[in-house]
């Protein structure tokens, strides 16, 4: 274990974490409740797909948060390889775990929406396939991390975290480069998303961003405590 200082994320001391939870926890639940109410009652019913289209308000934010989480993994992994500081490795691991949770939501909700829109749960479309690949890459990353820890394995995982992120821009451009069934999100152009739908999407995105921040604080703190436990156990024996 290459833990130099504990807590290595000073912002996550007992006191500050408690304060962060006091603010972030009620705020996150409030904004999620508002987003859910807006998705169900404020946003208009889509003419062709009906109520099934409302899946979109949490499907798209799940994908965006998944990408954000993997971007954090990418940046943290680069910093870990450059500096060798365990705090960046802990951040990458924590963010990867949450990224997999949100990408799982994308892969669960997408097929339900697809069944209503296309009549099939899954098609080997470019966007769907590249998203599934992304999920497998980071599940592989977590599997690698779940075995016994050492610095060499952490470095290998950091390389995987960086290379895996290369799939994110591929997913983003997949709908324009290949012929695909997946719809392209048009937000700010004429004929694009209805203003009420756009507002609902933005509130849902804000709610999931808050949730991601909350989960990241909790997961990072767990990682710090595990390191602290390892150090203390080593001192005892």
């Amino acid at each position: 274990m290459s833990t130099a200082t504990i807590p290595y994320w000073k912002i996550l001391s007992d006191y500050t974490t408690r304060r962060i939870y006091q603010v972030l926890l009620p705020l996150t639940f409030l904004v999620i409740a508002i987003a859910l109410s807006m998705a169900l009652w404020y946003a208009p019913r889509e003419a062709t797909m009906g109520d099934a289209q409302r899946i979109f308000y949490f499907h798209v934010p799940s994908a965006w948060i998944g990408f954000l989480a993997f971007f954090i993994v990418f940046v943290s992994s680069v910093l870990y390889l450059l500096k060798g500081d365990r705090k960046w490795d802990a951040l990458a691991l924590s963010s990867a775990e949450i990224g997999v949770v949100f990408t799982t939501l994308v892969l669960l909700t997408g097929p339900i929406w697809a069944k209503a829109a296309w009549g099939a749960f899954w098609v080997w479309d470019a966007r769907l396939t590249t998203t599934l690949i992304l999920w497998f890459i980071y599940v592989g990353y977590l599997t690698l991390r779940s075995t016994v820890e050492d610095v060499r394995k952490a470095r290998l995982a950091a390389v995987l975290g960086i290379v895996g992120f290369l799939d994110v821009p591929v997913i983003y451009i997949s709908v324009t480069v290949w012929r695909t069934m997946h719809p392209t999100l048009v937000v700010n152009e004429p004929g694009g998303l209805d203003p009420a739908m756009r507002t609902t999407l933005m509130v849902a995105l804000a709610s999931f961003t808050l949730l991601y921040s909350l989960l990241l604080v909790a997961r990072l703190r767990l990682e710090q405590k595990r390191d602290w436990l390892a150090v203390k156990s080593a001192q005892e024996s």
Partner: protein
Amino acid sequence: MENLIVAYLMIFVVLVGYGWSLYQRTRGTNQALRALDEK
């Protein structure tokens, strides 16, 4: 409408499940730390 309910239920189950797992893991680590302190 059933599609929407199933999708939202799935989101709820996955997020609550992950939150619960995070809570349990943190609790376990806290207990192990306390046990070490008491020793």
